[in-house]
């Protein structure tokens, strides 16, 4: 396991390096630099601008800036956010954590919805239930997530009005969050996450459901399932122990690769649902050309994804004995 992790780590270096180069140069291609908004601020003097420019290395060519940034990053310093006049990491870290919660819960729902339905679809292939679920999921698949969200928010509002239930309408915590006990805090956050995570999962679940259904069908046709049945195992064992375990292998392998999409998908919802995640802040940062903040976000998400990929590889090695982690 350890050598595997070490190897993963070394393999990730070039990816990370290239990603950071790409990010940095895309940002530097953008018109103006991050001092542009500052120049418009009458409260900031020429001298101050000059000082800033020097301290951020903006007077140097882009590649030098890149190395400054890279060098600092290796020391855990992601630069200074211009909007917040603070080091980037403490500003973005809570946002990233928030987004990760949302994405994780979303993934939990995603699988919790897709797996049973996919398996059901394969077991009862072409039954009425299979077909009707498919139709519903197809329909949901066509919805842009933000559009569905608008509609969901509307219905929540109606339900609230009708029943008086306190269903959260956005955000991540309730007003009285700080006064709550830790268990209540947990529940409070969960309550806020439930709807966005579930709705987001629903819009995407159709794809995975069909994949799982297809994989299940494929595995169900395989020789070793016939062998298992020939042993006299029950239907349930044949499906869950023998078929499912094999059918999810490609999915486990894909979990890591799913993360970028999930983070992006969650982004739309974060915007609509007013969730304090990465994307809303990133959008503002892009408008304000808060260079280091943007770069910091992108690099950290990229790191997260690489970690995620490594985790899914490890997971795969756990469930698939054919893969050697060594």
């Amino acid at each position: 396991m350890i050598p595997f992790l070490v190897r993963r780590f070394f393999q990730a270096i070039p990816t990370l390096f290239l990603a950071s180069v790409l990010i940095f140069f895309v940002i530097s291609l953008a018109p103006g630099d991050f001092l542009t908004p500052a120049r418009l601020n009458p409260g900031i003097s020429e001298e101050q601008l000059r000082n800033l420019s020097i301290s951020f290395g903006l007077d140097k060519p882009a590649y030098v800036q890149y190395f400054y940034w890279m060098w600092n990053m290796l020391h855990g310093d992601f630069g200074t956010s211009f909007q917040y006049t603070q080091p980037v990491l403490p500003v973005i870290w809570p946002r990233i954590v928030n987004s990760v919660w949302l994405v994780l819960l979303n993934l939990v729902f995603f699988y919790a919805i897709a797996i049973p339905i996919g398996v059901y679809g394969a077991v009862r292939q072409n039954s009425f239930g299979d077909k009707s679920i498919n139709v519903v999921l197809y329909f949901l698949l066509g919805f842009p997530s933000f559009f569905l969200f608008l509609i969901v928010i509307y219905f929540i509002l109606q339900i609230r009005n009708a029943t008086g239930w306190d269903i959260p309408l956005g955000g991540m915590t309730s007003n009285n969050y700080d006064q709550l006990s830790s268990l209540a805090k947990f529940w409070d956050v969960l309550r806020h996450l439930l709807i966005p995570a579930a709705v987001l999962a629903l819009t995407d679940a159709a794809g995975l459901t069909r994949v799982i259904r297809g994989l299940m069908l494929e595995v169900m046709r395989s020789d070793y399932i016939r062998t298992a049945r020939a042993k006299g195992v029950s239907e349930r064992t044949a499906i869950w122990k023998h078929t499912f375990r094999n059918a999810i292998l490609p999915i486990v392998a894909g979990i890591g690769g799913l993360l970028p999409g999930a983070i992006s998908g969650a982004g739309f919802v974060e915007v609509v649902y007013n969730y304090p995640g990465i994307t809303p802040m990133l959008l503002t940062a892009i408008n304000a050309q808060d260079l280091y903040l943007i770069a910091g976000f992108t690099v950290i998400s990229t790191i997260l994804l690489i970690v995620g990929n490594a985790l899914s590889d490890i997971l795969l090695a756990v469930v698939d004995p054919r893969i050697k982690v060594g």
Partner: protein
Amino acid sequence: MTDHATNKAEVLLAVNGLKTYFNTDDGVVKSVDGVTFHINKGETLAVVGESGSGKSVTSLSIMRLIPMPPGEIAGGEILFSGTNGQPRDIVKLSEAEMRKIRGNDIAMIFQEPMTSLNPVYTVGDQIAEAVMLHQDKNRKDAMGAATDMLRFVGIPAPEKRVNEYPHQMSGGMRQRVMIAMALSCNPALLIADEPTTALDVTIQAQILDLMRKLQKDIGMSILFITHNLGVVAEMADRVVVMYGGRVVEEGDVIEIFKAPRHPYTMGLLNSIPRPGVDAHVPGTPRARLEAIPGNVPNPLNLPPGCAFEPRCKFAVPECSKAVPALEDTGGGHMARCIRWQEFAKADHEVSA
């Protein structure tokens, strides 16, 4: 057919008029269309036939493992006299009763040892699963039994191997594992669907040897499906020849090889070179194999009469009229050909 049940030997399994159909988009595939045969206790029955002639479907029907839909057992009965000797019709059993039979009374091994084992469980687990299912053992005992079974089928270092995964084993070894799994509950009938086709000759020899040995030890019956006439000659007591979803000839192995009564069987026997005998001697003119012309029939589109008629060099116009009956040609030897008597006569003339 009842007249066969009256044979002196005890019948373990009797398949009567079995019909297994598949409903596909393009029409109904009558994969097995009225197949009748039986297996006696302790004997090895070989089923040979063209690819697509319904051998596997027959065996899977016996196991009730036909995928439904699209498949269905459209008729016939499969009488199995299990351990208690009382014949039961497998076609009518409930799924739960059937599960008790599978793996326990009737076990099966398949052609592809590489794909027939679940890649994510150790071979021990997979053998132990069958043991736990049918023998009321706990996991530990079952694993012990699995180890014993591995030793029984001649796998070296079974204590170690029992914890290995299928991908860590070679093809021959996996086929041994399959056999171990199949035999783990002492079945009365072992169905082997082309168990050696995917293996090398040297490994095939090992496996066949093993099966013969084990059959002697356990006393089970074997339904042996194969393409290979050499294997049939070596393994079988009796032979069933299938063509186009029907039995075209059935009989004692020596009878079938020496006095085939169906042109398909004859063609089959003549179309393969016999090792040693047919070796080419330089300078001599090359011999020719007697090939069966034409193609394997399309199961969706079988001729109305004898399925073999389009490829048969003895075909006469009557052949395409109706499906010939399976006739007894004497001594339990049956053939589905309207001209079998002519062949019998010719045979006698030649041998005379």
